[in-house]
């Protein structure tokens, strides 16, 4: 475990409106708060963030071309997602919402598997049963993505509880949005984690919006971190577009949880730069951000400036990197698009461990029955 992060940045269980940050807009680190991470690690985070960005661009295009059915991107939220995942230990588990695929990829979930999911083909680990972007990634200690808002929060608490009961050194982290704080599972998950002092992190990605609802309209609490007070769970606010700050705080919370110190609520203050998803048109409800502001806020650019300052990244490296990733994406897209849909028989499998008679019967009816002329 990387021990470069010095604890003490998470306030005790009292209101705190301070925003923890490390990097300024120009990528300059504050020596007071700088976790002084190994440069290889920072580079790895940057590359993952940049790869995520390139993927989003490509997937949104594929959706517009009608080649995939749907995409939910994470433009502008890459630091919140990837730097927090980077701060978790290998044995820790991620309970994502739908916007954290970058975290799975950071953990070496194969890009090809992701792309197979985007096309819902026969190679998709979810067997084409779920919408695009709803991956399952057990090997990455990353659970199956669901659409109902908030449900992963109690589950992450329960998984952490199991680890605690079994005396295993495992911390869990649930990711969710500002909108999800209104869900039943946020309430129950926070409360159970507080009462039973579960080793779990609540990673609240406050990206300013829940589809068209601004975060100020989602709740009247002074800050989202303040919500921890209702449950005796320490809450902390972090500049979610500052990868180093996100890493430092998450790491501290992991260390605390792992050493029996209980859960932490981390408000990652970020901004959803894109639409909610490919189905959404934000023009109906929000003003365009001016481009200067957008540049300033961009977490990928900010971390790049930091690396460049440290002479750890260059324009040439950037171009080479983009080319390599785009090529990799191309290969995966091509392969995923060419793959067949899942078999019709597979539609009836894994409802239960063993197929009961009524499903065997329905399977036979369907497989042997007439075929639709509609394509899959």
């Amino acid at each position, binding site marked *: 475990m990387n021990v470069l992060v010095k604890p003490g940045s998470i306030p005790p269980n009292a209101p705190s409106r301070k925003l923890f940050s490390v990097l300024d807009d120009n990528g300059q680190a504050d020596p007071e708060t700088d976790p002084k991470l190994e440069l290889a690690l920072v580079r790895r985070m940057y590359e993952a963030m940049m790869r995520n960005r390139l993927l989003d661009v490509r997937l949104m295009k594929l959706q517009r071309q009608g080649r995939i059915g749907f995409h939910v991107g994470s433009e502008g939220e890459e630091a919140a997602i990837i730097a927090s995942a980077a701060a978790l230990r290998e044995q820790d588990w991620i309970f994502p919402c739908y916007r954290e695929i970058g975290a799975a990829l950071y953990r070496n979930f194969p890009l090809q598997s992701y792309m197979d999911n985007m096309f819902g083909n026969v190679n998709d680990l979810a067997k084409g049963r779920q919408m695009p972007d709803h991956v399952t990634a057990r090997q990455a200690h990353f659970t199956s993505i669901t*659409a109902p808002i908030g449900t992963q929060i109690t589950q992450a608490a329960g998984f952490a509880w199991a680890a605690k009961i079994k005396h295993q050194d495992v911390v869990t982290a649930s990711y969710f949005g500002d909108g999800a704080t209104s869900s*039943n599972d946020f309430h129950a998950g926070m409360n159970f984690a507080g009462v039973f002092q579960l080793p779990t992190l609540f990673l609240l990605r406050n990206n300013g919006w829940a*589809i068209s609802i601004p975060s100020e309209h989602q709740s009247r609490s002074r800050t989202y971190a303040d919500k921890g007070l209702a449950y005796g769970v320490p809450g902390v606010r972090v500049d979610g577009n500052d990868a180093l700050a996100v890493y430092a705080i998450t790491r501290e919370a992991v260390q605390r949880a792992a050493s029996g110190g209980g859960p932490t609520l981390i408000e990652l203050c970020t901004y959803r730069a894109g639409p909610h998803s490919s189905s959404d048109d934000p023009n109906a409800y929000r003003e365009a951000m001016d481009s200067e502001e957008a540049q300033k806020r961009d977490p990928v650019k900010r971390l790049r400036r930091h690396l460049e300052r440290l002479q750890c990244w260059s324009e040439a490296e950037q171009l080479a990197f983009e080319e390599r990733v785009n090529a990799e994406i191309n290969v995966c897209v091509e392969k995923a698009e060419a793959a067949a849909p899942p078999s019709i028989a597979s539609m009836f499998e894994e409802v239960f461990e063993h197929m009961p008679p009524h499903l065997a019967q329905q399977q036979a009816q369907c497989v042997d029955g007439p075929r639709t002329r509609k394509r899959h």
Partner: protein
Amino acid sequence: MTQMNMVSAINDALRFEMQNDDRVVVMGEDVGKLGGVFRVTAGLQKEFGEERVIDTPLSETGIIGTAIGMAMGGLRPVPEIQFGDFIYPAVDQLINEAAKYRYRSGGEFTCPMVVRVPVGGGIKGGHYHSQSPETIFVHTAGLKVVCPSNPYDAKGLMLASIRDNDPVLFFEPKRVYRALKMDVPEGEYTVELSRAKVVREGEHVTLVAWGAMLLEAIAAAEEVKEQGVEAEVIDLRTLWPMDTETVVQSVKKTGRLVIVHEAAKACGLGAEMVAQICETAFTHLQAPPRRVTGWDTPFPYTLENEYLPLAHRIVPALLETARF
């Protein structure tokens, strides 16, 4: 008369009734400024203001719980659940509260409201944007469930539902939202609740459907016609309380019943209809009553057209039933 699709017909109904009755309020996630993710409530907030067209926090529990309170307080709330798949956080309020208020209070309290619920498949929504959860609410005494198949009925049923003094779940088939346009009268008219409609006459087999599957049922009926089978197609329109009488009359004539629904088969409304027909018209049955439904699996993404009981699956059921 204007040509409207189902989205604009429901929008028109809401607008009409909000002008007509200032007790009507619309509420839900993204229904205001955005006008709903399907744009069913588009323009209403501009016309009626933020107090009557309310963007709520992300909580179905809160939406239905407060809507019940509003209804008790004299309003006529029309809450939206963004997708039927997300209604579960609200079922405690619907089943234990809305459904039982009139009964448990001996009639002292009621909660008239219309819960709008986009339902069903056909938009490549996978597990969580495709479900048809009517069974849960049909099984619960005290709730009404409506599901129109076309823009005309959608507007007329919506107006009837808002004026009804019981809680109504108004299921809107997403697959139909923009699939067809038809003439819809401007202004006021209602379609009576709990009245099914014979939309195609036939003497060989009774075919019951609703919502998006009605179109498939009609397509199947046209297809089997070529093989000499005349199906009588009934659009149930209100799922509960069910217009059993219209179905029974038809089955007494045809001696045969096929029922179609998107929801899973087990304990679906098809089972209830078969059981009711057995109770009321058993001696008239000349063939086993038959269900063509969603399979007993979660709703899948890639293979959704294999999951749905589309015309290609209805046709053989009609033929086998007619020729039994």
